[in-house]
């Protein structure tokens, strides 16, 4: 075997793969045509949640398969789907306080504080902390703390209380974005101006101009510093 190769175990079966590949790349090298457990391949979509253990190590580790290099003696199981609870709600009618959590996700109040969720987060987020913020209706802090969540669901797979952390956080972020973040005056003004047709003549005029004139405009336009 080539020196640069490592041995990995995909669902328990051994494969020798180049050591510079990601876990996802290694599965493909082994011959898998991925359908499940592969999405953006860039660490944003959470499709490729993976749990693994390195031989001789007691610790169960988690990662995104597309963002993690293989190691020798890795025992790998992908978690392409996890049954998160997603409650249905009307964003225009939700109570903007902890009542909404009590109604939709009451299990968050059964958190036992084990911190398994935080330890399991593939993004390194303080998951237990953002659930604590959600419990007390501090949605702004919950939103900030959970912002980088890719909803891979590994946290929930480890939770003894059955909490669907990514869905709780998403609800908190939507409430924060819609109701708690400061309103944007210049946006409201501009939308009204457009409704009133303020720019209509200007735009129609531009659309009717020959390309030569538009080139002049473009090449000599003032650029904000």
């Amino acid at each position: 075997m080539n020196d640069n190769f490592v041995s990995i175990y995909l669902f328990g079966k051994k494969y020798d793969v180049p050591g510079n590949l990601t876990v996802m790349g290694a599965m493909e090298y082994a011959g898998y045509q991925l359908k499940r457990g592969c999405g953006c391949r860039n660490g944003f979509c959470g499709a490729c949640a993976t749990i693994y253990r390195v031989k001789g190590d007691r610790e169960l580790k988690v990662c995104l398969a597309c963002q993690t290099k293989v190691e020798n003696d890795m025992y790998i199981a992908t978690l392409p789907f996890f049954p998160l609870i997603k409650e249905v709600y009307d964003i225009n009618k939700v109570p903007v306080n902890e009542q909404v959590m009590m109604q939709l996700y009451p299990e968050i109040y059964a958190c036992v504080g084990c911190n398994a969720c935080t330890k399991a987060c593939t993004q390194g987020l303080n998951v237990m902390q953002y659930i604590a913020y959600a419990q007390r209706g501090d949605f702004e802090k919950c939103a900030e703390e959970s912002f980088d969540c890719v909803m891979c669901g590994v946290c929930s797979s480890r939770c003894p209380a059955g909490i669907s952390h990514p869905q709780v956080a998403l609800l908190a972020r939507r409430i924060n974005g819609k109701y708690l973040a400061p309103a944007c005056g210049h946006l409201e003004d501009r939308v009204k101006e457009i409704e009133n047709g303020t720019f209509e003549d200007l735009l129609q005029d531009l659309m009717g101009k020959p390309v030569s004139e538009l080139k002049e405009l473009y090449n000599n336009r003032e650029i904000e510093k």
Partner: protein
Amino acid sequence: MYQNEMLRSMEKVAANRAANTDFEPRRMTADEKETLLATYHPDYKAEEFRVLTVGPNKGGKVPTELSALLQAHSRVKDVSLDLSHPDYDVDVLVIGGGGAGAAAAIEANEAGANVLVVTKLRMGDANTMMAEGGIQAADKPNDSPAIHYVDAFGGGHYAAIPELLYKLVNDAPGAIKWLSDLGVEFDKAPDGTMVTTHGGGTSRKRMHAAKDYSGAEIMRTLRDEVLNRQIPMVDFTAAIELIKDENGRAAGAVLMNMETDELTVARAKTVIIATGGAGRLHYQGFPTSNHYGATADGLVLGYRAGAELLYADTLQYHPTGAAYPEQIFGALVTEKVRSLGAKLVNAEGEVFMHPLETRDVSAASIIRECSDRGKGVDTGSGKGVWLDTPMIELKGGEGTIEKRIPAMLRMFMKYGIDIRKEPILVYPTLHYQNGGLRIRADGQTNVENLYVAGEAVGGIHGRNRLMGNSLLDIIVFGRSAGKNAAAKAKETTVGALNLDHVAAFEKELAAAGIETDLVSPKLLPTYTHGNPKFEAK
């Protein structure tokens, strides 16, 4: 993490950093840009394109890889299907579960239509999820939709369809408001003012963002809204052929379960193609920043059904794909990194261009630096130039990177590179399909009842797209396609279904003497990473 030659070059970059941060490079003239593009941009390599010999764009040229798929056989060529008992029967069929598809589904549902969304992977598995930098809208007092129009029209080489571009810029502030009302968290100052920056080729700071998770934040919110509305959605199911009715109008699709290969039939009064881009076709061997499923499926379906393509020969190579380490080769390094003050620097530590030229110009300029000028850095698997990220902290203060581009910080930190202290190596990566199916302002193609939204559309941006105008177009044209397709569905009675256009296309292929084993749409790429056991096949 960096090795050998990279380290030596990095010392030069560090030595010049203070001076380079203050240095304001001039922008290129129109003539300089034209010459640069003609010499170095991949779109200008004639040998990488083929002339189509069948279909509505016969005589037009498209990338070689796309041409093979457009002129391949149907996946249902030898399959007998009972179209008279459809498995799904709806008003509006949305093909694709990305940002455009989700926006369309929400608006069609809002208009009272019975909607079905089909997506070949999961809902939200799309390029939208990976858009980092932001979304444009002229909503500041010093800006206007007219200024936005000129920026986009010039940046797209005066080729955008005016009616489409008008809609894009004029509906932009409304799109931001719609997203905001759905709960999308935009970066704002304490008084509610949007935090906006420049993108390449913008003349006003109109890039709105949600840190560097802008697309992910939009996508997860839209997906949540689709689920809240309980819009029927079938995932891991690809549309593999459009179905028409006896009047020649689009009237549904043949669907295939990606896991079991089971075929089903969806009948619909109107159909919206929202299948996204083509990065996974790896044109000219480029790596891509695109989603796993970006294989131009919608272009193939539409073309076979007689819908015209526009500008399918123009692709966008994002200037800053990751060139190192190899595990993230081709991954997107958001343009926002340059918006925040990082400049492009060559192996000698010289700033060789203004960091905010349009994407096509920037990509061509980097390719020139790494080829004829010989000032690229050897990455071990190719060449790259430096994107000097520590400049951001020099300019914006310590902590700016963590606050404004946390995803970039995380992506490189996983490989031991702290972008607050060390620059990164970049090279152009295949990023966006500028062209696609031609639509009218209402989103409909030349095939009646067939709508298109999102990256599968051609003509909104012309021959190059500005940063932040794609997240914008999926919302503006996704919403509009949803509304219009729902309205059109109300006045439509579907006739008997058929696949006659597929048979006719096969005849055309034979008549043109095209012999191929290829079937399309492609659906997914296959990667084997150099494994000799599979490469031979």
